[in-house]
């Protein structure tokens, strides 16, 4: 039996699905196994189907597949919802003693384990622990040492007291023993454990962690799925480093507060999702024109309008790239996995301050809510570098003043980057504005100055294009004529798809692009390939459009926009199919 386990717990929202799933994920991670989680959730708090899925292996896992090996079904509907992924030999754990589950029919070829979750939980101290009983049962089925679950329960409930922890352990034991005693079925699973110590976190948390590591001290936001976790992560943590999180009254306020803090010299950030980014749009131009360094994270969800708030999509690329009236120099950076959420956040702060521009961090729901295991060194704090750019102190101010001794915050330099004096700097007092201005920051409609300042601001992008590394990440067969390009969170599924394709004898070169603007020049690569396919989670192919524009050619597109991320096996099939079609169907 392969060591690759696909497990899920599903039920009604409000059944504690999320926290139960997390406990199991943590138990697996603590046993030195890699974990990759995903969620099916509806946009409501009580009622409505919801599931937490875990894929786990001793090898790294970077994606989900269309397969479910063990399902803990707290409702009958959970089985229906997952029918497609269940297969012959799948194990379904359910509580057949509950009246609403009495008539559950386990599909042919699958193994139904009716475990009295509620009764056993009550025996252990309370019905609320029924999910933990199910976890104990899952341990037995998978031959997974239950001590790892104990350790996760200690972490989860430790603060609530010894007796709560003990009751939960007891509940898990009851689930385990029940399966052991009542079913003499030999399960195929034998989950390996290792000595590795992994950390388990999701993309939003990684963004928050990256922000603190990068010296971000001010965060203003307004709650919105799926970006709220960034704010929740920072709350209570950023204060320990002298920072503050403000829950603003709306996104207009959030971005303007963040802008204010940035003007005061703080590394500052806001995060939101679709509708919120719309509201912030007017201020993008002010950030760019006043040359304020600001990191704006857009954790994309399914749009337009309120769309499907709890579903995946990469639909805001054009918004972050073009949003706002007038022409706005900016950077758009798109992390490709959970760890990259950390690294790219740190990078975003450096880019913002070096070039005094807005930097959009374009993440998405799949990455934001996915928990993934990593070696702790992946988040190497010693490697974090801080570049604050051209900040001048009171001794340096004079070099940037005009003949009347006035500081010139928008002095037109060769690289386009001006000196920056934090408020409080002696003799640095100056004005900044969203109006077109001269080097002093004062309003002007002088045609020459206008052109000079626009060129100066755009020059920063050119400088960055030359000075920074915008390379894509490369995988697969470097010599293949089949080129697949994706951006953002599709990287994991695509990397695994390469393995499936390889098994089918299809070789592919894969470029994962973490930068939207500036972006790598892929013209040569595209020209050299016979087939070029761009993979993205949206209907129109916004990134494909960009690449076609850059390379003056047509590319094939694989798009998914039903609200669910790509699955590795599904993606492999789509690519195969796409390679077989003659015409470009863009």
């Amino acid at each position: 039996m392969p060591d690759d386990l696909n497990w899920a717990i599903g039920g009604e929202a409000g059944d504690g699905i999320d926290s139960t799933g997390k406990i199991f994920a943590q138990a697996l991670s603590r046993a030195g196994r890699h974990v990759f989680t995903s969620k099916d959730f509806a946009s409501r708090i009580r009622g409505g189907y919801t599931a937490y899925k875990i894929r786990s292996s001793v090898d790294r896992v970077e994606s989900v597949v269309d397969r479910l090996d063990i399902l803990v079904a707290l409702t009958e509907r959970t089985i229906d919802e997952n029918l497609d992924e269940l297969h012959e030999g799948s194990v379904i754990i359910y509580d057949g003693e509950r009246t609403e589950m009495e008539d559950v029919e386990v599909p042919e070829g699958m193994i139904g384990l009716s475990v009295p979750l509620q009764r056993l939980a009550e025996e252990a101290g309370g019905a609320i622990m029924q999910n933990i009983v199910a976890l104990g049962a899952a341990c037995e089925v998978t031959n997974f040492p239950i001590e790892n679950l104990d350790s996760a329960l200690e972490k989860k409930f430790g603060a609530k007291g010894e007796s709560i922890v003990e009751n939960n352990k007891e509940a898990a034991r009851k689930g385990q023993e029940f399966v052991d005693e009542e079913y003499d079925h030999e399960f195929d699973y034998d989950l390996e454990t290792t000595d590795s110590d992994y950390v388990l976190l999701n993309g939003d948390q990684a963004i928050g962690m990256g922000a603190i590591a990068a010296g971000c001290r001010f965060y203003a936001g307004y709650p919105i799925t799926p970006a709220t976790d960034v704010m929740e992560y920072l709350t209570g943590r950023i204060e320990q480093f002298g920072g503050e999180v403000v829950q603003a009254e709306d996104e207009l306020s959030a971005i303007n507060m963040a802008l204010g803090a940035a003007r005061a010299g703080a590394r500052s950030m806001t995060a939101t999702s679709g509708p919120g980014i719309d509201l912030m749009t007017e201020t993008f131009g002010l950030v760019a024109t006043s040359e304020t360094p600001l990191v704006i994270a857009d954790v994309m969800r399914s749009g337009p309008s309120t769309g499907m708030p709890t579903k995946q999509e990469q639909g805001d690329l054009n918004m972050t790239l073009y949003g706002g009236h007038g022409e706005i120099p900016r950077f758009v950076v798109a992390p490709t996995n959970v760890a990259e959420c950390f690294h790219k956040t740190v990078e975003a702060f450096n880019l913002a301050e070096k070039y005094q521009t807005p930097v959009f961090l374009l993440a998405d729901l799949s990455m934001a809510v996915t928990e993934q295991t990593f070696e702790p060194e992946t988040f190497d704090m010693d490697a974090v570098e801080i570049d604050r750019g051209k900040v001048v102190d009171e001794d340096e101010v004079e070099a940037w003043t005009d003949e009347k001794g006035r500081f010139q915050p928008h002095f037109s330099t060769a690289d386009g980057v001006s000196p920056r004096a934090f408020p409080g700097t002696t003799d640095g007092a100056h004005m900044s504005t969203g109006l077109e201005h001269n080097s002093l920051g004062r309003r002007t409609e002088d045609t020459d100055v206008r052109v000079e300042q626009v060129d100066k601001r755009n020059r920063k992008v050119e400088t960055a294009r030359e000075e920074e590394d915008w390379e894509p990440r490369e995988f697969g067969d470097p010599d293949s004529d089949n080129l697949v390009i994706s951006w953002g969170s599709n990287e994991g599924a695509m990397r695994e798809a390469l393995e499936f394709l390889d098994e089918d004898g299809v070789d592919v070169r894969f470029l994962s692009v973490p930068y939207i603007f500036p972006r790598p020049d892929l013209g040569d690569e595209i020209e050299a390939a016979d087939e070029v396919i761009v993979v993205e989670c949206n209907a129109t192919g916004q990134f494909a459009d960009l690449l076609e524009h850059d390379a003056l050619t047509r590319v094939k597109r694989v798009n998914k926009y039903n609200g669910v991320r790509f699955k590795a096996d599904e993606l492999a099939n789509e690519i195969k199919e796409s390679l077989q079609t003659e015409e470009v169907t863009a």
Partner: protein
Amino acid sequence: MSSDVRFTDFKSDKQPTWCPGCGDFGTMNGMMKALANTGNDPDNTFVVAGIGCSGKIGTYMHSYALHGVHGRALPVGTGVKLANPDLEVMVAGGDGDGYSIGAGHFIHAVRRNVDMTYVVMDNRIYGLTKGQASPTSREDFETSTTPEGPKQPPVNPLALALSAGGSFIAQSFSTDAQRHTEIVQKAIEHDGFGFVNVFSPCVTFNDVDTYDYFRDSIVDLADEDYDPTDREAAKEKILDADKEYQGILYQNEESVPYSDLHGLDSNMADIPDGAPEGAMDLVREFY
């Protein structure tokens, strides 16, 4: 902060383009005097301005300043002050800027009680866009967009502030230089959000709420036996729609500003060269 700062040090060398006679001249002069009188200098002062004739103030003053987008000056000021508590933050704007497009922010800024001063140059009209009704325009005030008057009651900014838990609520008249300066000064000295609604007549587009009108109708609370710490008394005055008051209508002497409540006292601009000490603990939390 140097003690020999004069109010003219806050003047930029840019000549205002306000119409001659505009109330904003007096409003600004009073603000500059109040800043100097309270021991501030241009290098520790941050002025945030909105959009409108009033919003041009940042250009005519000399200090660190940001002239933002319409209606969002208060959030910017909030960010500036929280990031660096050593700065004296003054936010200025018009009645349209503050009570129309920015009304939501106004109420929340009042509630948040960040230690800054908010001066609204209330001319009861949109000046910069050439004379449309503003939220403080009278019900029957005829303008280019309301030929028969807005037919809706004006907002009462002081009442909004009081109901939102305002800790310092005042009103002044731009041309009464001494009183106006004194009131703004008190607002600066207040620990928390100091709000001053200033009657700052528009001589070009408003022929109703004129200097003469205010001069004739203003009642100065300094001339009455009035206790600004009495919230009930404040309520009565503020809801009295028939009079125009000058003075501090309400001040909560127990006011604790946001930064104190949240323990913010450091300049957030100061950060280490690399990840902060103890950052690895952030990773270990996820074991």
